[in-house]
């Protein structure tokens, strides 16, 4: 394998692994803000307890998110040096702004969020939680803006030629509000809310099934259910809007998502299917002309197909883009269905008697995670063969100084470390969940004992 494919695999591995955690931090952050807000408002101790419990889980996801995030920032330079030189002028200000406004805000207040329960008043603690959550939301802004600029570049001009070619910023706000950034940012935020909400519902549904912390779990489940209902429906809107944008700005990507080749024909919308790139056909179940209707409200309207692009300008893995896109959409629909079903029983006051539904909610935690990953895979693979759409090819973006052996070394190292990290994360997550919301009282006792022993020995 050559440097290009190895570097792509490594980037995909490290970014996909990283992306397990930040959405959880953003989603859990929102729910913790609601919990602490309810505590300040009602003074009911149950909200305080659930907020403390979720803070412990938040700390776990946040810690791994930071550590794996630093890898991403430096990997641009280590593996994609030409890309970094090309985009630095444009991309750099977004990244610098992320560091100074967002990352510093969240990490600064994180200490108080986790360690400050006994040191600051509930009001200050609420502000710290809000600060951490807003910081994580801002991080998403700048990083999605930067990625969106790669999809739909704007507010720049290209200077220099060959090795020295680079994009220079001409209009900061045009760069920030490039054609796809708002749609993609809202889509990412809401995907994160869903990841957080479904984790909270999963854990509390499990407690309810086990008959543990029943009063607390019912309230916490309720909070997360409302977040899930609003978020899953809103996701339909942002997703649709995003697709309309892709149709205008990246027609080759949209065509790959639905496996559409013939530019003169109406485009179908598939529920599921398989793309044969040799014969340029899709085998599957779908609505004929469905994509045409969605985009132009006309089942007959022609949609630009992959045939309009020379082979070297088409995404390399059309079937993969198609599959990832359809997995994401299918899960999105499932999340709407589950949330509405939950809401229906909630209004009838019988939600917590539906053990079968609670069991589904326990397992459903995996769904938004898969959808988030699949969405990014289809977005990024659909952008190929470009790293900056229409301007810089992925194959031209590599580091000149790096050899395949070096990337093999780092790829194997990251694979081993991340496998270990994932195992530890799941182990500790499970442990914290098993320990439950009242754990800290026992912990208090235990640590006091330890201190006594420490003082004696």
């Amino acid at each position, binding site marked *: 394998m050559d440097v290009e494919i190895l570097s792509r695999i490594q980037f995909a591995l490290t970014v996909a692994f990283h992306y397990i955690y930040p959405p959880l931090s953003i989603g859990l952050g929102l729910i913790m803000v609601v919990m602490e807000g309810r505590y300040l408002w009602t003074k009911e101790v149950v909200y305080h307890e659930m907020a403390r419990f979720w803070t412990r889980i938040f*700390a776990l996801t946040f*810690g*791994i998110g930071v*550590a794996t995030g*630093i*890898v991403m*920032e*430096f990997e641009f*330079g*280590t593996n*994609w*040096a*030409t890309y*970094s*030189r090309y985009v*630095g*002028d*444009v*991309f*750099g*200000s977004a*990244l*610098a*702004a992320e*560091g*100074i*406004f967002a990352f*510093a805000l969240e990490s*600064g207040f*994180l*200490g*108080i969020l*986790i*360690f*400050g*329960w*006994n040191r600051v008043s509930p009001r200050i603690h609420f502000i710290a939680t809000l*600060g951490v959550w807003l910081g994580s939301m801002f991080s998403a802004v700048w990083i999605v803006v930067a990625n969106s600029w790669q999809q739909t570049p704007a507010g720049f001009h290209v200077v220099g030629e060959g*090795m020295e070619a*680079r994009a*220079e*910023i001409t209009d*900061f706000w045009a760069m920030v509000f490039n054609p796809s950034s708002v749609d993609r940012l809202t889509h990412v935020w809401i995907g994160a809310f869903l990841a957080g909400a479904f984790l909270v519902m999963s854990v509390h549904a499990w407690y309810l099934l086990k008959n543990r912390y029943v009063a607390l779990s019912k309230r916490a489940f309720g909070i997360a259910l409302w977040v899930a209902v609003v978020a899953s429906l809103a996701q339909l809107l942002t997703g649709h809007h995003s697709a309309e944008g892709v149709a205008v700005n990246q027609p080759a990507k949209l065509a790959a998502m639905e496996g559409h080749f013939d530019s003169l024909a109406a485009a179908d919308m598939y529920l599921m299917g398989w793309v044969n790139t040799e014969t340029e056909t899709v085998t599957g179940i779908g609505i004929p002309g469905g994509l045409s209707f969605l985009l132009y409200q006309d089942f007959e309207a022609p949609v630009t197909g992959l045939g309009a692009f020379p082979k070297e300008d088409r995404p390399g893995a059309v079937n993969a883009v198609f599959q990832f896109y359809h997995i994401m959409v299918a899960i999105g629909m499932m999340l709407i269905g589950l949330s509405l079903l939950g809401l229906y029983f909630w209004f009838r006051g019988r939600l917590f008697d539906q053990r079968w539904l609670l069991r589904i909610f326990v397992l459903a935690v995996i769904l938004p995670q898969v959808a988030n990953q699949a969405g990014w895979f289809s977005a990024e693979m659909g952008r190929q063969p470009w790293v900056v759409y229409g301007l810089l090819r992925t194959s031209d973006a590599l*580091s*000149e*100084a*790096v*050899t395949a052996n070096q990337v093999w*070394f*780092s790829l194997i*190292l*990251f694979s081993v*470390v991340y496998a270990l990290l994932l195992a530890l994360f799941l182990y500790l997550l499970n442990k914290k969940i098993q320990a439950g919301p009242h754990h800290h009282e026992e*912990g208090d006792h235990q*640590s006091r004992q*330890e*201190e006594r022993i*420490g*003082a004696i*020995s």
Partner: protein
Amino acid sequence: MATILGLDYPTLWFLVVGGLFSGYAILDGFDLGAGALHLFLRKEQSRRLALNAVGPVWDGNEVWLVIGGGALFAGFPPVYATLLSAMYIPFILFLVLIIFRAISIEFRSKEPMRWWRQTWDISYSVSSVGIALLLGVVLGNVLLGFPLESGYRVRGHWLQFLNPYALMVGLSTVALFAMHGAIYLTMKTEGRLFVKIHLLLKRATIFFVVSFGITTLYTLLYIPHLSDQFKQAPVLFVLPLAAFLSIANIPRLVSRKQYGWAFFFSSLTVALLLGLVAVELYPVMLLSTISPEYSLDVYRAAASEKSLGIMLLIAAIGAPLVLAYTAFVFWTFKGKVKLDDTSY
């Protein structure tokens, strides 16, 4: 070319990047140093206290690295890209150690078993030393220069970053951070642990003075290009003189039990030493040992004036905010460490 206070934008941004990396070295320096000393503490209770002394702040400290890296990427894209790809293996190891360190801190307290805590203690300490060493190795190579050719290619063997000079700078960095971290811990501990830390501080100070002395001597004798600036402008000798006085002041303050001031001066030492590096290099950022025409200086590497202008504005708005909440966090957790149910 636009200027502020007589400095052009690339020079200003060079100062911003330098300031951020100094901030990072001062802040993460003390928690890396505390990590380096970790295994010298034997008792579980001592280790817990030492770990919790950096517990609420290490993550915020590491953010300075993220901001510094971002600022380098944004302001001098070719330097960021060339440095990181030319030093591929050290940076990958550095990243892996950053991960190990984070998870060691996060996971050690989660299980009571001895072997579990011992494993994470070793991982925490080794990664802390490794990070400090690699940072020094990168700095040493930057001081020496790279065999940089046209088209940003680098000549030579992929292991050439492990040269004696770079290792010497790496060792000095470990020693400096160990001393800096020990001073921090004296402010945060009491009783027998304090006495132990005090002893470690003495040894770390000696270790630093010796390794730094040898490195300085080697630099003066064998790497003449690094003293060119001082020969041209003797007024710059103020800087090494200040660094020397600052270092000499540390043991004096420690023997007077003024630990807060000692910490101030060890922070100042870190800043002054990086200031020396900046003066020695400027305006070059990446020196080519093959030909000066391949070297990257601030003007050749700088982003456009438009981009730098935007970023200077962002920095001007952001810096007071960052300083304000950093100060607030340190103030909240001021004083000696007390363990409670939220501790590691």
